[in-house]
């Protein structure tokens, strides 16, 4: 049996984490949650995720900063970074890709679309 892909969820909004957790667990993924960028960085090496769903506006460390740090600290690691944020301006998008993310999804999202994007991204690395 193939091992379940691991996904790290980073968001400071508990309700959104609740929804994502339910959705992704149902789809058979292994899940870990983090409430902000700092926690995400701490958990990164232990959990060793295949993919990160990253919010931008968070206390302690925002998502852009988090992505940059991840790419700097773990340049070898093949991990997909997907921004999942309510910030929808053009500039935000650009900054998101500049900080090293593969995808930029604007909230609110459609569950099925999100799942498809995740699946496609995982297919490229696994």
């Amino acid at each position, binding site marked *: 049996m193939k091992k379940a892909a691991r996904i790290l969820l980073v968001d400071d909004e508990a*309700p959104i984490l609740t929804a994502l957790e339910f959705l992704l667990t149902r789809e058979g993924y292994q899940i870990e949650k983090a409430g902000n960028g700092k926690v995400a960085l701490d958990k990164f090496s232990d959990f060793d995720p295949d993919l990160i769903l990253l919010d931008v506006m968070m*206390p302690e460390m925002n998502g852009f900063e988090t992505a940059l740090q991840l790419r700097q600290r773990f340049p070898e690691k093949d991990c997909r970074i997907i921004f999942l944020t*309510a910030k929808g301006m053009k500039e935000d998008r650009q900054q998101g890709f500049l900080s090293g993310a593969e995808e930029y999804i604007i909230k609110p999202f459609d569950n099925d679309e999100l799942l498809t994007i995740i699946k496609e991204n995982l297919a490229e690395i696994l």
Partner: protein
Amino acid sequence: MKAALPYIVVTNWMALLFVVAHYSVVKKRLRKRIQKHHLTYALSLALYCTAWTFYGSIGNAVSGGWTFIGVYLGPTLIAPFLSILLIKMIRISKHLRITSIADFLSSRYGKSSNMGAVVALFCMLVVIPYISIQLKAMSFSTQFLAVEGINEIKLTHQHFYTDPAFFFAVAFAIFSAVFGTIRLDPNEKHPGLVNAIAFESIVKIVAFVVASLVIIYAFSKEDGHWLEAMSPELISSINNEALGWPKWTTIAFLSAIAFLLLPRQFHIAVVENRTEEQVYPSTWIIPLYLFIISILVIPIAYVGMSVMPEYIDADTYLLSLPLHYGFLFIALLVYLGGIAAAGGMMIVSLLALSIMISNNLVVPLILNYRTQYDYFLSNLNQRLLEIRRVIIFLVALLSYGFYQLITVHYSLVSVGLISFAGIAQLAPIFFLGLFWKKASRKGALIGLTAGILIWTYMLPFTQLVQAGYFSSRILNHGPWGIYWLSPENFLGLGVYDPITACTIVSLSINTLLFVLFSLISPPKESEISQADIFTSPEKYLQFRPSQLSPVRRSSDFSAMDVVLKNILRPEQVNQLYATYFGKWPLTETPKTTPSDLVDIVENHLTGAVGAASTKIILRYLVKDEPIQMDDLINMLDQTQKVIQYSNELQSKTQALDASTRELRLANQRLLDLDILKNEFISNVTHELRTPLTSIQSLSQILMTYPVSEEEQERFVKIIHDEAVRVGQLVNQVLDYRKMDVIEEVQWSRWEVVELFNEIRDSVTALLENRILEFKHEIEDIRVDKNMLKHILLNLVSNALKFTDARGGQIRVVLEDSSTHYKMSVADNGIGISEEALPHIFDRFYQVQKAQLDKPKGSGLGLAICKRYIEKMDGTITVKSRQGEGSTFTLEWPKENSEKND
């Protein structure tokens, strides 16, 4: 000639009854008028008065004094509640297509076929003796008129072919079979039959009243004291020694239950009911009907005791007194009234029993043999009618047999009361089942069984012992010599009469075990949804039971078609298809039946064969999904929850729509404003999208995934909270926007008390156990009232949010200084961290809260406060320490500053 008279009368009567019933079936317009007439329903309910009340009450009054009145008092006392109770029963039954009391109870307790079978069987045991006393009354009255001397009447040891009782049993069985099983009606409505019953009720009361008046008139004319028939001496002449309140109240209590729960009463009151409006007039017609009969009983009893020799049975006074005074015609009228009373009871009882026995006993039994499916389903309609006819005749003959063996030895009243005490065993599970959701099937079965056993032991068994079928040792010494176990002295209650003792013991133990076992073994998932329909039917009335069902069932179309055509007429089936598919016939007949069409078929089928049998039939038909019975029920249960939950979602979506509309409006205005630039819009949209994200994702999850009940609750709660958050944000955006267009501050003087009261009123609902105090040093202030009120509300709401619901304290204090007003709002809540403190008046700044689960605010509230107070040339400051609460202080000048002049 005289000997043949009653036979001629009764034959003509039967013929007339057939004509009435037939005519009202054939003449559609007439039938509709009669059916709709509220009097028809109320009169058919007077079916309650059988030969027992017609003849037996007088006998009862002579021997038992006032106890006879209990039989009339019971229904009279519950009549005012019919509009609530009966209508609830009718609504539930129509919704679930319930056709008998056995069906009702089986549906209530998780569509349990065991429950249905037990109730049906028990009802048969209770009703057969009851029918037998009707046969006795009819047979006796017939012979009484036919033979010269009372001594020559012999009820026993007759050949059945010369026995009038046998003739009546067969005749009324035929009537019941003809008008009760003409065709299969899924709703079990029988207009002809009901009209005939209403007609009989009229004959009954007319005969009783006319005969009574004639008797009283003849008596007073002969003895010369007309008034005495109504005087107090008359009442005291009645045997008062027998009057004991326990028996009297017991009978009233039992009668009230019997009025609703006897199979024939349930059938007429619930199954044959057309509209709910019919119920209201019966709340006064029934008591009136019973009152008229009951006030005439005493005078007749008195006259009978005065003029008739002692060997004449008081049960016959109504018949023998007119003969005594030489009014043969009146005697014949009374005779007819008696036949009407007894016959009506027989006809409906036979029909009601046949429906419940066929649907709850015979059909499930047949269907349990898989080989019988095809035969049975191939001509469902015909099979079912055949079964019912057989049952009708079987029950009629059993009643005749019972009459020959047992009833001839007893008075009408004693047998009738035993039946009443029997049917009362259904009362706990019936009435508690209507109001107590936690009543479980296991509890109900145990309680009912115990009640039935005790009743059997204390009443019918005792009767059998007394009739000599068993040794009477058990009565005198009790089983194993334990006297307090003797049926006559069970649990030491021998001091009461048998009916009272049995009622007390059996119903107490019945109710106790029922409640106890319902608590010990609460209803299963599968029962709860059914229970919910019964305890709160209003929630479900607009839905078909399986409308929103998540269950996907399909079946072979032709098989379904066969079943449908068996229970409905061809044109009804075509009509149904046309409604369902949009047109009919279709160019291509579908191969499979869609899920929701299966639901419709199920609904019709339930009406025809009852809930329990339908389940079995569908299990067979819906082949491609071999559903276990329990799975099926489980899935149906979920349906009910989905209905509830989708209602909630719907209302939330509406709230959201409304918010969105407001927001659009607000956005439009925002765009016009110069001061609110991109940053603001970006922030607002970010703050809006965040809660909308959870709302969208979670509601989508709820629509696509099967989720557990806990998850469901949690998700709906989050959706609700986040929707509220969106609403708040929208309001505050509007407020923020409003501020910018306010040109001038509206200064005026206001009473402080008034302002504080308004604040208090606005937040009272949210206070819970928090303490909110107001203090002020001066009585009135100069202020822009709307602005200050807005600021205060905002500060107090924040304080509420961050204090504990228990022990939270909020103080609002107004102080006076020489130049300024100083108002502070202090709380003992969680406080604000040092890092956060400098930013809290910034737009969209949000303090991280301890409980992340709670929705956040919009981040605009304090920013608005700051802008308002600045408009008033004032300041707002904050002091706080984490864990020790916060104090916000407002200061603004007392006098107009120069620029406002």
